[in-house]
């Protein structure tokens, strides 16, 4: 055997070993985020690791660019395609820009789903929304009604009058008002997602409706400003501010009691569910309209006509868990 032959055989065996060790039976799922070092996504990675542990034969590759740019994510996607991972679950920086790269990934047999921030339809097999408009609409009124056993007046402090998301949520909320007898919606005002305007609108609500029991703000700017206005007016305990907020910003209001509880998606659950869905689709589940795909402890995702699914009700944060989450996002 010549030296060259020997070297060639060694290289071949080495390559074969490397190949088998990488593909063995382990399913490799890449969790691609907008940028590394963001608390929200670090928490999603925690959820993905939890799912991997539960599934047993899964390796999570948690990766993403340093800046939230589409070109950075494309570099990451290209290197994942080169490695031949089994699945990519991405929160996209740009729904269109990453689509060609992801399409290439799907052409090479890689399962691609998007979560949190979606990808254009042709660039993914399904998209997982953290929640859905009906679920959010129901949650925000329920959070207020839960602490109003005798009913009473509530008001909504929204973003702008033309905010698509907020308007849909408020409409959905109005649809289910009948399930909460005694709760009256007296006004909807707009703080334009500006801290000072939201603050003044909250003050106006308190002056106009002295019997107001709750302010519902389905916007992170509004809920923060309203809880500040209630605190400054000395009405903690009389008026409960609730809605959608960020734990890091709302920790103070929850401590003081201006806000008893509020909601937003839970990134840990989101990372967990995205991993479970990637795994199930990579293992043969078909992502098509109407399909139901398992998400482990989060139940089942039902795909709509655009292959989109909603994970769950928004997650409720109160005194019992705010400490844990305020450092996360």
């Amino acid at each position, binding site marked *: 055997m010549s030296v060259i032959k020997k070297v060639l055989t060694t290289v071949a065996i080495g*390559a074969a070993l*490397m*190949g088998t060790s*990488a593909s063995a039976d382990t399913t490799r799922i890449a969790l691609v985020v907008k940028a*590394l*070092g963001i608390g929200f996504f670090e928490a999603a990675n925690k959820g993905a690791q939890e799912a991997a542990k539960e599934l047993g034969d899964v390796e999570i*590759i948690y*990766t*993403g*660019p*340093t*800046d*939230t*740019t*589409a*070109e*950075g994510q*494309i*570099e*990451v996607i*290209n*290197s994942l*395609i*080169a*490695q*031949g991972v089994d699945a990519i679950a991405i929160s996209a*920086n*740009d729904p*269109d*820009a990453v*689509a*060609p790269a992801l399409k290439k990934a799907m052409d090479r047999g890689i399962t691609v789903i998007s979560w949190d921030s979606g990808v254009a339809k042709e660039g993914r097999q399904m998209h997982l929304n953290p929640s859905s408009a009906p679920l959010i609409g129901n949650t925000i009124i329920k959070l207020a009604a839960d602490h109003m056993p005798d009913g009473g007046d509530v008001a909504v402090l929204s973003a702008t009058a033309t905010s698509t998301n907020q308007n849909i949520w408020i409409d959905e909320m109005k649809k289910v008002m009948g399930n909460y007898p005694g709760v009256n919606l007296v006004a909807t005002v707009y703080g334009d997602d500006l801290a000072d305007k939201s603050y003044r609108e909250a003050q106006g609500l308190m002056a106009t409706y002295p019997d107001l029991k709750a302010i519902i703000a389905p916007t992170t700017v509004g809920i923060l400003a309203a809880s500040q206005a209630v605190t400054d007016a000395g009405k903690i305990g009389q008026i409960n501010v609730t809605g959608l907020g960020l734990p890091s910003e709302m920790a103070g209001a929850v401590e003081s009691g201006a806000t008893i509880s509020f909601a937003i998606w839970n990134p840990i659950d989101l990372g967990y569910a995205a991993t479970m869905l990637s795994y199930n689709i990579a293992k043969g589940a078909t992502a098509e309209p109407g399909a139901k795909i398992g998400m482990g402890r989060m139940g089942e995702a039902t795909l709509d006509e655009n292959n989109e699914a909603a994970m769950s009700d928004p997650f409720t944060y109160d005194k019992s868990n705010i400490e844990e989450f305020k450092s996360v996002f």
Partner: protein
Amino acid sequence: MSTTERYIPDRLQSPWARRLRSWETLLLAVAVAIFTFNAFASPYFLNAWNLSDATFNFTEKAMIAFAMALLIIAGEIDLSVASIVALASTAMGAAAQLGASPTSLVLIGLVVGLLCGAFNGVLVTVMGLPSIVVTIGTMSLFRGISYIVLGDTAYGGYPAGFSFFGQGYVWWVFSFEFVLFCVLALGFGVLLHLTNFGRAVYAVGNNATAALFSGIRVNRVKFILFLLTGLMAGIASVCLTSRLGSTRPSIGFGMELEVVTMVVLGGVNILGGSGNIPGVVIAAFVMGLVTFGLGLLNVPGIVMSIVIGGLLIGVIALPRLCSMWRR
């Protein structure tokens, strides 16, 4: 008088010894080492298509780096290049919304690049302002305009033919971008090393006053270099926009630092006066290979930046350490 001729060397070392000890040889060795390391570290590295995908990590930046190398050799710098990319991309996006054809989109990208370069050039050569200050200002200005126009939104809907510049292949695994990179490398190599203009660039960078007294129109040379840099940023913008198929104001964010890193890693003296194009070409490959190789090992981007930074300092410090040790 006899007519015998004798070759009188202008350097003490023979040309071969000089070449062996040169920066490019060192850099080439580094590139080969990285290539070999990658090939062993990851089983996915030695694959023509994977390597072809990897060239996109550096081609656009390298196109700008060629012009930037000339500019830095002439003693100036342009830190606004990434913002020119963003502004040119925004202009192309706006035109695409009005139904512009791929050809006119390319022209718009190049013209915006040229105009931005001309603006920098006028401020530096006519007003006599330091280029580092001017281009830090225009860096915010150009990208700021993109942010005002686009805000949170994005331009998409580019015509189908436009995607060729960033996603098309000329032959087999050789993408349009990679071929353009090679052509531009050759063009800039000829311009810098074989033309009078190239000699003038070195002269301006070594001693602008002496160059002026030797009859070189210093400001004109500098102005042309700013124009060229703007034009190359425009070309890079066409490629990047075509590759992404959409424009956001954050497009190409942070690119200027990678471009300057590439130039300095390529052996161009940051103070001006020396450097060459082959060095920059090798540096482009080194940076592309490092980021792609580390990407295959799933090394986080932050660590990649640290490695590139370490490489830059290492490659610059090594020759100096060697000469200290020799003494």
